[in-house]
């Protein structure tokens, strides 16, 4: 028996999915909306990268369907649930999850990576590589505590995607509204917004993030009853990280949009709209925003790639996600010591590297395709 659990981040992902689905449904008849995407999917590069991204997203979504298992209880007693939260991905990958070795083993190995004192069948103790419990099943080897590295890599995808997407979504409203408003209105509004982002930019990012994470940590401990599972606690910490990255990360895009809006507001279609007495809000929404969307799209994808990497860097420094949460950053953090070992344990780092590399590369190449498709100048060429 299981009981579904909705973590905060799951709720946000669900909301995001519903929004995207609604937008696609509304725009399904709009040919100018569909044509560029059709063009992207028609190109080989676009199709391949979109497929890769879809696989990543699928894994991330499976990993966002959380549940707790019901503990066996005596009849008539109230149902008791386990404190450990699993996801649909955990269920699918159960063999990988439960087939735990004692410690490091290299990819597809049959024996452990380090020699131990083992008792032979003849009762004599020898130093030798002990055989694995599940030889040849660990495609990417196992880590220090014997967990399957492939399982860890797949579980890290959700964390990476979540940081990339949520942070971008938190950042976008700031960047869009403040950037365009600064460029369009100019004067004191521009001064104020510029002052704000120059100040934000001059505070060292890691310092700000470290401080924010510590504050959240304290808050979680103060309200322990709200976060009764380890998963819920690390989830909140992840969201806090996204929030702080988002609140500080909008400055670059805002600066870009301000410059573009400065240019656009002098264009004659904006002047014509003003001559009609169209309200400022409507001019921002109808005339400026659609004309900066190509910039937004490109920089969002580039930021997304950067954020997946930033998570790794921050976890390495120790202010990233919860150490108990499986993420690329924590995998790399662990690899720091493994690389200092002799012989070197390389597969955990290699696995994190390959999974991140494929995700970021696919996202960048896909964005290139989308940008080409959305650019009216290149549309004629294809």
């Amino acid at each position, binding site marked *: 028996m299981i009981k579904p659990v909705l973590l905060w981040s799951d709720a946000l992902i669900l909301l995001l999915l519903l929004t995207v689905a609604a937008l696609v449904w509304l725009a399904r008849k709009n040919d*100018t909306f569909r044509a560029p995407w059709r063009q992207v999917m028609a190109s080989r590069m676009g199709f391949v990268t979109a497929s890769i991204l879809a696989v990543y997203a699928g894994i991330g979504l499976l990993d966002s369907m959380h549940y707790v298992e019901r503990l066996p209880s005596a009849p008539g007693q109230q149902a008791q649930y386990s404190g450990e939260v699993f996801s649909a991905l955990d269920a699918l990958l159960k063999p990988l999850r439960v087939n735990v070795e004692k410690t490091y083993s290299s990819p597809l190995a049959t024996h452990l990576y380090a020699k131990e004192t083992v008792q032979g069948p003849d009762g004599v103790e020898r130093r030798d590589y002990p055989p694995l419990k599940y030889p040849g099943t660990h495609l990417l080897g196992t880590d220090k505590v014997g967990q399957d590295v492939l399982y860890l890599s797949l579980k890290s995808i959700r964390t990476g995607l979540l940081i990339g997407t949520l942070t971008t979504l938190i950042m976008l409203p700031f960047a869009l509204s403040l950037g365009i408003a600064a460029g369009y209105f100019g004067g004191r509004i521009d001064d104020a917004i510029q002052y704000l982002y120059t100040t934000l930019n001059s505070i060292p990012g890691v310092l700000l993030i470290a401080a924010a994470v510590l504050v959240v940590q304290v808050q979680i401990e103060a309200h322990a009853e709200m976060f009764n599972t380890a998963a819920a606690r690390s989830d909140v910490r992840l969201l806090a990280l996204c929030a702080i990255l988002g609140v500080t990360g909008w400055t670059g895009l805002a600066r870009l949009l301000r410059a573009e809006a400065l240019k656009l507001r002098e*264009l*004659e*279609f904006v*002047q*014509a*709209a*003003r*001559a*009609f*007495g*169209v*309200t400022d809000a*409507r001019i921002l929404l*109808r*005339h400026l925003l*659609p*004309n900066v969307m190509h910039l937004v799209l490109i920089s969002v994808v580039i930021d997304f790639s950067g954020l997946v990497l930033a998570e790794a860097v921050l976890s390495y420094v120790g202010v990233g996600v919860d150490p108990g949460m499986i993420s690329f950053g924590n995998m790399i953090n662990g690899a720091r010591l493994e690389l200092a070992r002799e012989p070197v344990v390389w597969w955990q780092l290699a696995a994190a590297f390959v999974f991140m590399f494929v995700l970021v590369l696919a996202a960048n190449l896909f964005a290139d395709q989308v940008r080409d498709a959305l650019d*009216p100048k290149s549309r004629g*060429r*294809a």
Partner: protein
Amino acid sequence: MSGLVVENLRIEIAAGGASNPRVLKPVDGVSFEIGANECVALLGESGCGKSLTALALMRLLPDGGRVASGSVRLAEEDLFALTEAEMGEVRGGRLAMIFQEPQTSLNPVMTVAEQIDEALMAHRGLTGAAATEESLRLLESVGLGADKLDAYPFQLSGGQRQRALIAMMLAGEPEVLIADEPTTALDVTVQAQILRLLKDLQQQRGMSLLLITHDLDVAHDMADRVAVMYAGQIVEWASSDALYAAPRHPYTQKLFAVLPRLDRRGERLDSLPGRVPGPDTLFVGCRFADRCPVAFERCRVETPAFHEAAPGHFARCHLADSADESTSRRVRHAHQITPNGAHGAPYAAPLAVVLEVRDLAVHFPIRKGLLKRTIGHAKAVDGVSLQVAAGETLALVGESGCGKTTLARAILRLIEPTAGRVSLLGEPLAGLRGEALRRKRAEMQIVFQDPFSSLNPRMKVGEILAEGMAALLSLSAAAQRERVADLLNQVGLPADAVGRYPHEFSGGQRQRIAIARALAVEPKLLILDEPTSALDVSVQAQILNLLADLQQQHGLAYLFITHNLSVVSYLAHRVAVMQGGKIVEQGEAETLLTRPENAYTRLLLDSAPGRGVGS
């Protein structure tokens, strides 16, 4: 012989990408020659292939473009047979080119001297003191003083930049100078100076000059021989005198017929239907047949040969030699000249005054320093008074920077005026706020110069037209749709334009959309800010006719801002000449244009092309 000979030049551009490869032929068999000490004008509307021809001569075709066949010989040397390194010697040396935009053809972080020295070093090996001396001599020859040697491009005016660029190009002592629309971006008085300079330099140095232009008058003033291009081919090639006296190709004849001029006041301008066919069109027969008023069956099946219709006068038309005078008459006859009461009509007693401007001033504060204290004012508009009546066109003439656009924006309250009064239909605009101002906005609208930036590329035409109605008129959705359809019909656009985006339309059609957008809110006053200066002459004629029709139908008052005096002389009832933020002369068009009293007005009129370049 010396000079430049172009034979059967064909340019192909690969387009369509890998999935759908197409070959465009923007230039298809162009032959002409420029003798030593001769000026040849390559004349044509946009998209006819004249700039690509020039780039091909320099071997500077853009990516994807290549010379498919033909030869270019500079003093008997085949340029297409040279290696790239050898061509590098020729380019900027014996064969030099100046471009349209003086702003972008000079490097902004190098001084004029450095840029001229670069050319001197590359082509004549001059350095140090010798180079400085030579740069100075070159600058003097283009009429710039020694003090401009150490100036950066931003410190120079547009005309000075063009002079500096010419000096740079002269550094290599070219035998042939190609000038691609060298004065299009310049004011009319500066244009006259630059054209005179080019003419003088060409004669003093015995250079050949290839002048690429769309302006018939400029070509007439400058060229010894003129080649008229249409759809990638030369359709007529003759000495300037012969061509302007009796054009033989119907296209050339039409180009003359669509020009607005003082003596065409009151007439409806002839128009050239349709547009220049694109470079991907497959032609059968004559390329001009679809738009030609005298086309007959043979034109549709047989491509006319490029032949000598009269001594030294070549044309690509079946009718060129058979009928000297009668073709021309028939071209003119095919278009019924209808008197047009809306404009150019004898100036009657003024009707109701729509717009009245009194002592309007717009001063921009100049702020300096950390605290941005105001240290002075730039007086963009400095005490302007004018009035426009219903059904009347007031032309506001002036050069760039004289404040005419600022004046327009101040009238519309897009900029707050510093002082003065603007009243519309007797009601002062100053102090109006919120709803009252919005209602007043419906009575005055503006049409801008650039048909590309004046329409939001991400809105459909229907949405663009409905925007003003939604903001200013309270109409039901059905009434709005009906009105949009009606507007499209009025400006001569198909009804299915509603669902299309601006980029699907040509420049002239976009200008029609912009006019329809302004008309949507039923204004009484239309401010036209250079509405035709970005358009080809044939399209300009269509738009001017449309404006005349609309004025007649709706009794609109036009404030027509322009620098083009031929348009003014054709269209305006009254003219106001603006200089340095002030109106220096104002009066009825015919009087002012024929008997100007102000010195500046006279200078403007004398600078207009078509009166010879002077000496």
